[in-house]
C-alpha cells in the first residue's frame, strides 16, 4: 500500500511539474498556429511594413515594434541612472535609521499594480506634458516616463540587493587605503555587484517590454512611427490591449497573434539572456 502511494505521489508531482513545461510549449505552439494565416500572408514583411489598416486587411507591425523599442529605451534611459542612484543611496549613503523604512516602502511600491501607474499617468501626468509641449499630452514621451516610474521601484530594489552583497571587509579595506565614498562605490561596490546590476536592468527591461496597463492609457494607439517624441504612437502590448476584443476579420486576429508571438519571443529572449549571462541560479528567484 505504502509503495503504491509512494509511486502515486511521485508520479503526480512529476506530472504537475511537467505541466509547467507543457503550458510554456503550448503557448508557443498556439500563438504560432493562430498567427499562421498572417505569417503565410505577410511573411517577414510583417515586421518591416509600417502600414496597419484593418479595413484594407493590410497589416504591418513596424510602428508597434518601433514604438515598443522606443518607449522601452526611453524608460530604461530614465530609470536606470535613477535606480542606481537610489540603490547607492540606500546601500551606502542613507543613515542606518532610514535604510529599512525607505527600502521597504520601495519594495512595497513595486507591488502596486501597473494599471494604477497608468491611471496616475493619464490623470496627473498627461496634463503636465500637454501644458509643457502642447498637443494631446498622450504619446511616446509620456509613455516612456510613466514606464520609467513603474519599473523604478523594482529595479532599485534588485540593484540594492545586489549592492548589499558586497562584503564589508572589501569596503573597509578600500576606506583604510584612503578611498572616498565615491571611490568605494565606484571601484568596490559597483565592480563587485556588476553582474547583479546588469541582470536587474535586463529583468526590468523584460518587464517594460511586456508592460501593458501602465502605457495603454497614455500612448494613444496610433499605428504610426512618431516624428516627434510627443506624438502618439503604439507598442505591441498596447495594440493587443486595444484591438483584441474588437478584431472581427480572421486576418486581423491572426495579425494580432503574430504581434503577441513576436512580443513573447522578445521577452523570452531578453529574460533568458539576463538569466544565463548575469544572474546566478537561486539569486534570480526574487
Amino acid at each position: 500500500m505504502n509503495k503504491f502511494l509512494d509511486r502515486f505521489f511521485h508520479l503526480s508531482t512529476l506530472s504537475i511539474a511537467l505541466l509547467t513545461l507543457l503550458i510554456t510549449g503550448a503557448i508557443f505552439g498556439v500563438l504560432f498556429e493562430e498567427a499562421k494565416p498572417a505569417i503565410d500572408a505577410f511573411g517577414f514583411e510583417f515586421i518591416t511594413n509600417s502600414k496597419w489598416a484593418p479595413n484594407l486587411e493590410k497589416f504591418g507591425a513596424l510602428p508597434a515594434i518601433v514604438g515598443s523599442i522606443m518607449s522601452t529605451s526611453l524608460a530604461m534611459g530614465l530609470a536606470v541612472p535613477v535606480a542606481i542612484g537610489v540603490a547607492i543611496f540606500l546601500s551606502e549613503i542613507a543613515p542606518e535609521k532610514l535604510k529599512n523604512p525607505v527600502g521597504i516602502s520601495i519594495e512595497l511600491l513595486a507591488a502596486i499594480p501597473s494599471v494604477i501607474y497608468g491611471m496616475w499617468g493619464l490623470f496627473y501626468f498627461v496634463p503636465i506634458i500637454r501644458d509643457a509641449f502642447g498637443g494631446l499630452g498622450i504619446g511616446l514621451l509620456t509613455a516612456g516616463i510613466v514606464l520609467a516610474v513603474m519599473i523604478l521601484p523594482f529595479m532599485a530594489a534588485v540593484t540594492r540587493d545586489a549592492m548589499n552583497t558586497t562584503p564589508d571587509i572589501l569596503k573597509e579595506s578600500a576606506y583604510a587605503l584612503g578611498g572616498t565614498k565615491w571611490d568605494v562605490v565606484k571601484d568596490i561596490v559597483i565592480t563587485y555587484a556588476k553582474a547583479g546590476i546588469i541582470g536587474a536592468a535586463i529583468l526590468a527591461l523584460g518587464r517594460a517590454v511586456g508592460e501593458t496597463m501602465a502605457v495603454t492609457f497614455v500612448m494613444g494607439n496610433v499605428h504610426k512611427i512618431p516624428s516627434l517624441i510627443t506624438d502618439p504612437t503604439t507598442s505591441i502590448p498596447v495594440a493587443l490591449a486595444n484591438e483584441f476584443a474588437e478584431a472581427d476579420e480572421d486576418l486581423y486576429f491572426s495579425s494580432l497573434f503574430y504581434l503577441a508571438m513576436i512580443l513573447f519571443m522578445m521577452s523570452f529572449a531578453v529574460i533568458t539572456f539576463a538569466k544565463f549571462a548575469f544572474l546566478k541560479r537561486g539569486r534570480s528567484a526574487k
Partner: protein
Amino acid sequence: MSYTEKRILINKLVMVLSTLSALIGMGFLLWILSILVINGIDAINWNIFIYEGAPPGYEESGLKHALIGQALLIGVSTLIGVPLGILAGTYLSEYGGLKSKLANIIRDISDIMMSAPSIVIGSFVYAVIVAPMGNFSGWAGIAALSIIMVPIILRTTDDMLQLVPSTLREAAFALGAPKYKVILQVVLRGAKTGILTGVLLGVARVSGETAPLLFTSFNDNFLNTDLSEPIASLTVTMFNYATSPYEDWQKLGWAAAFILSMFILTLNILGRVILAPKRNKK
C-alpha cells in the same frame, strides 16, 4: 585645486547626485501614493459596497459587482494555482533536487514565465478557451491567472523546501516512514511559513493583473457569479471607468484602485510579518 581637493569635490558631487536621484524617485512614488490615497478616500462610501454598476449620472452606482467578481476570480485561481504550484515545487525539491537536469529546466522555464508579458498569456487563453467556447468567461480569466500564479508558488515552494534541514528527512526515514509521508508530514510542514509567504505574494501579484483579463473574463457592469459568463473584475472595471469621460465613473475607478492597492499592500506586509521571525533566527 589640489588632487585631494578634486577627489573630495567629486565625491561630494556624486553623493549629492545620488541623494538627489533618491529624492526624485521617492518623490514620484510618494506623488502616486498620495493621489491614490486622496482620490480613493474621497471616492469611498457605503454605496460602493451596496450597489452594482449603473449608467453614468446615477446616484446609486457602486462596485459590488466588481468586488464580488474579483473575489471569485482570485479565489478560484488561488484554489487551482496554489496546490499545483506547491506539488510541482515539491517535485523539484524532493524528487528532482539541485542536480537533476529536468528539475533545473523546469526552474529556468518558471523563472522566465514569471516575467513573461501577461497580455501574451491572455491571448493564449483567448485562443484555447474563449474562441472555442464562443464567449468570454470567468473560467478563461481564472485559467489565465492560474497560469501566472503557478510559477511563482512553484519557485518559492522549491526554495523553501530546500531550506528544510536534511537531518529532519533522515530522522523520519529512520523511523520507517515512506517517502510520501516524509514529504507531506515532515518536509512540507517544516516549510509551512515560507510557503504561506509565497502564496500570499503570489495572490498579491495575480490580484493586480489587468492585461490577461481584458479578453478572457472581459467585464460586466452588473453582478454575475456564473463563471461561464463574462465577469467583472476590479482591475478591468478600473480601466474602463478611468478611460471613460464621466466624472462619477472616474471616481469609482479611483475607489477601485484604492481598495485593490490596500488589499495587495496588506498581503505583502502580512507576508513579511510572517517571514520575519524566521529570518532573524538564521
